[in-house]
Every structure is written in C-alpha cells, then in structure tokens.
C-alpha cells in the first residue's frame, strides 16, 4: 500500500480570528508535527495566545484546523477534550478545591455525567500529581498554595487528561528555575512518549529548548523552523528589532537583551 503523507498533529489553513472588531490573526497556515515540542514566540500583541486558543477551539475563527487529521470544528466536544489538553494563563478561582479535586477535573472528558471516578482516573491523577511533584499537597486546597505551587497543580490537571496534544499558554509563569528545569524534563518525557506539545513562552531562552519554533509577528507567521537553526535565530532577532541576541552556551542557546549601545556596536 502506498504510504499516505504523514498527518501533522495539528494543522491549520487560512486561519483568521478577531478580538472584538480587530482582526488579530491574518490567514495563518501551519503544520505542527507529532511527537514534537513547538514553542510559539513573538513580540507582545503578535497574536500568540489568540493562535493557541484557536488551535484549542476556544475562540471563533474562519479557516480550517485539524487535530490528528480530523477537522476540529466537527469533532465532538468530548472526543476533542480527550485528545487535546489546554493549560491557559491562570484565571482560576478554585480556591476551595483540593489539589486532588482540581487534577481530577482533567478526567471529566472520560467520566459519565456525575459518574464516580474510575480506578483509571485515579491512576492518571496520581501520575500527573507525582510528575509535577504536587502529590504531597493533594489534600490541601488551591487557596493554601503559592503561585508556583498552583501552577504545578494546574499543569497536573492538564497532564491528567492524557491527551495526545497539549497546548500551554505561559506554563512557566510563577515557576522558580529548578521547577522550570523540571518542566523541561517533563515536556521531553511527553515528547518521548509520542505526545505533541505546543507552548507560548515569553522567555526566549526557555523557548529555544523546544524542537521547533514558530515566530509570530502582527498576526502572521514570519518563520517556522528548528530551534537549533541559525535561520531561526536570525528570524528571532529580527522580529524583536535586533534588541535580543542569541548565543550558544554549551549545547544550549540563550537569548540576551541588547542595550542600545551594544546593539549599535554590533
């Protein structure tokens, strides 16, 4: 049998989306590969979070988005929720819910309405809480946790979905450097398991750890390529008006802000 073309985990064609009267995304075409971590970067107002919400089917849009080869618009909500997990910028008011309860909400797409959680649900929640090192606080309420601890619980909630595709908007918010490193390890593990991770990150140095980078500027993709590519680094410096510079540090890449004098000298 002739092999069909490999289908990307998420594909988008001709995506336009508006917030209020203003069009934010102007015809986006993209393919995000399976088992790959893609980070979306760009200046403030470039439309990064809007794009991520469109890919999660959380905003109205025109154009076509497919998830694992199926059009997102026609996918039943429950099935979509099982295949695609979302971690948004923190807007939670669940102060009274325990860490366990919050993580268990990630299993809603698998549970019958008001049905008791199954053993598989409990196992998934335990794995997620252990993976984010939130297991020890499982009986505490969200209101008793610090910002970074909460973020780890919310990440556990997204992991508990056990979806093939994870979309995360600023997942490193409030995390201290050791836990940022833990997060990187977690994402690497997910990718090894065949999961697709897409994240919007403000910290360019962290975004450069990804496999692929998608650079957005004024609602359009200006570059998509491997994070290790020099062309990606040049596109990244250009989109930030050369006010950052990418340097190699061992086997990693770091982005440093350039002061005006240094920029002129460079």
């Amino acid at each position, binding site marked *: 049998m002739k092999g069909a073309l490999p289908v990307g985990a998420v594909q988008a064609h001709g995506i336009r989306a508006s917030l209020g009267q203003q069009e934010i995304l102007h015809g986006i075409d993209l393919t995000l590969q399976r088992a790959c971590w893609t980070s979306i970067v760009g200046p403030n107002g470039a439309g990064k979070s809007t794009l991520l*919400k469109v890919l*999660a089917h*959380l905003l109205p849009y025109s154009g076509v988005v497919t998830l694992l080869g199926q059009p997102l618009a026609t996918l039943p*909500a*429950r*099935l*979509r*929720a*099982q295949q*695609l*997990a*979302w*971690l*948004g910028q*923190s*807007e*939670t*008011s*669940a*102060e*009274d*819910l*325990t860490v*366990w*309860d*919050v993580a268990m*909400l*990630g299993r*809603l*797409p698998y549970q019958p*309405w*008001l049905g008791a*959680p199954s053993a598989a649900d*409990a196992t998934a929640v335990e794995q997620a809480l252990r993976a984010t090192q939130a297991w020890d606080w*499982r*009986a505490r*309420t969200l*209101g008793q946790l610090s910002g970074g601890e909460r973020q780890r619980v*919310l990440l556990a*909630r997204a992991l508990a*979905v056990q979806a093939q595709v994870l979309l995360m908007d600023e997942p490193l918010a409030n995390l201290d450097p050791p836990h940022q490193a833990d997060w990187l390890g977690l994402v690497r593990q997910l990718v090894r398991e065949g999961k697709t991770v897409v994240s919007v990150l403000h910290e360019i140095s962290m975004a450069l750890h990804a496999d692929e980078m998608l650079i957005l500027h004024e609602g359009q993709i200006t570059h998509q390529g491997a994070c290790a590519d020099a062309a990606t680094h040049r596109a990244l410096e250009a989109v930030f008006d050369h006010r950052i510079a990418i340097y190699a540090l061992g086997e990693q890449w770091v982005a440093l802000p350039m002061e005006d004098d240094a920029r002129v000298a460079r």
Partner: protein
Amino acid sequence: MKECRQPQRMAACLGAGLLLASGLLLLFGTSVGSTGFESVLNAWSDPLAWQIVLDIRLPRSLGAWTAGALLGLAGAVAQGLFRNPLADPYLLGSASGASLGVALALVFFGVSPLATHWLVRLGLTGAAFAGAVVAVLLTLVLAQGVQHTLRLLLAGVIVGVVLGALASLTMLLAPEVLQAMQAFMLGSTGLVGWSACVLMVVVWLLCMGVAWLLSQGLDALSLGEATAASLGLPLTQLRAALVLVLALATGTAVAQTGMIAFVGLAAPHLVRSVAKTTHGRLIWLSSLSGGVLLLGADTLARWLIAPQELPVGVLTAILGGGYLLWLMRRNTRASAGTVL
C-alpha cells in the same frame, strides 16, 4: 478517594450540624410568638393553641427555613456562575423587578378603584414573582444570552438599578403604598402559609436537583471558562440552566418573603469558613446554612421583643453583615499574620 477524606469529613460534620440546628430552630420557632410558649405547651389540650402552632407558627417557621434555603442555594450558584465571592442571588435584577412588580400591584389594585379582577387574583406574591421573572428576562435580552458572564453581570446590575429607580418613582408618585412597600423591602415571613410552604419546598427540591446535577460544571468553571470549555463542557447550556435555577430560586423566595438581605451572600461564606469543598457539597451546605440563618433570624425577630416583632430583613442584614465583617477581619488578620 482516601486522599480527600478530610475535607469530606468537615463537610459531613457541618452538614450534620446544620441539620441539627435546623431541627432545633424549627422546634424553637414553633414555640415562640406573641402568645409565648403557652401555645405549644397547651397545644394538645387547647384547640386554639393547636391552631396557632399548626396553622401559623409551623408554616411560618418552615417557610422561613425554605426561603433561606432557596436564597442560600441561589447564593452558591451565583458565586459559582459569576466566579465572584461577592455575587448574591439578586444580581440578575430579580429583587428590583420583584419590588417594581409589588409597587405596581399595590398602586393598581391595592388602593386604586381601577383594579381589575385578574390583577386582584394575581396578588402581591404573583406580582413579585412576575416582576422577578421579567427582570431576569430583561437581563438576558440585554446581555444577548448567557454566552458572556461579564456581560450578564453588567446587564443584571443595569436592570437592577433601572427597575429599582422605577420602583422608587412609583412610590414617589403614589405615597399611599409606601408603608406596604416598606414591609416588602424589609422582608417578612409573617404571611407565609402552608400553600406558600409547599410551593417553596417543591421549587427548592427542583432547584437543588438541577444545581447538584450541574455542580461538576461549576467546579470546572472555577478553573476559568477557557479551561471548562477545553474539558468538553457545553458552556452555553450550562450557564442557561444555572441562570434558570438562580432566577427560579430567588424569584420564589422573594415573592413569598420579600427582600431578605444578606442571606444569599453570607450563607456560602459561612460554609467556606468551615469546610472547603466542591460545589456538589457546597450547594447543599449553603442551602442548609441559608435555612438556618433565616429561620434563626425569624425566630429572634419574634422572640426578642415579643409580643412585638422586628422586621426579619433588618435582623438578617445585621447578623449577615456582622458575620461578613467578622469574616473579613479574620481573613485580614490571617493574611497579615498579625493580631490587630
């Protein structure tokens, strides 16, 4: 799961305590009144005393508890739906709508010779309920549905202010209705009979059932609307059903007892100060604590200066407001880590 037994235990203890308090207050509520404890002591031997207990005190006490339970339930639903701990059941404009309905009913068939037969049959209770329903419908129209919570909230505030102003204007133009309106605005359980009791119990059971079925949705909503939608929840239908519960519970309570202040706001906070729990348990506990608050206030209102009575709305405002103030100071102290 055993991981979450502690919050469950706290919730169960609180629930048992509230049920016990409800029973004791119901007993005490049927024992106090203008004739003191004599009526209940002589109920078996004196037909008049029996009638006072059975036809006046018992339905009044049960009615006070049920109206409070409706408001407590509505408060928990409102705070969950709007994701705001300051939300109260009157947020969709239902209280102002009910006030305007009563004011218009008083003007048209309370004192006016132009009163028509159907208006008389409708009565003040019906007018209050109709006013509350019209206000909520108006809010929904202005908010263009239930898709946007913030728009719903703003529309509710606008409708509340405008209808409240119209009710005030009505009172200004027809000052003869002022006294009757004052009684409604302060809230009273004095005229609650068995029929009103049955109606409120039926509505309470219905609203509790629906709210409990939707409680997982309220938990998911507390993580943010985007997260709730990403979990596959039908948000529009969920919000519509919650608004319906909120409107029905509030409209029914206000129609029977007038505008009781603070119960709907304070009841969920009372629960949260003791037990942190999911909405599935919160709505039950909040409803029970609403019942205890209003029945307690009503009993006090009849007992404090017996044989006279205090307006129950005044007591709920003092007790509920005082309690929230105490809670606020306690939380401030806890977060500051100092003793004021």
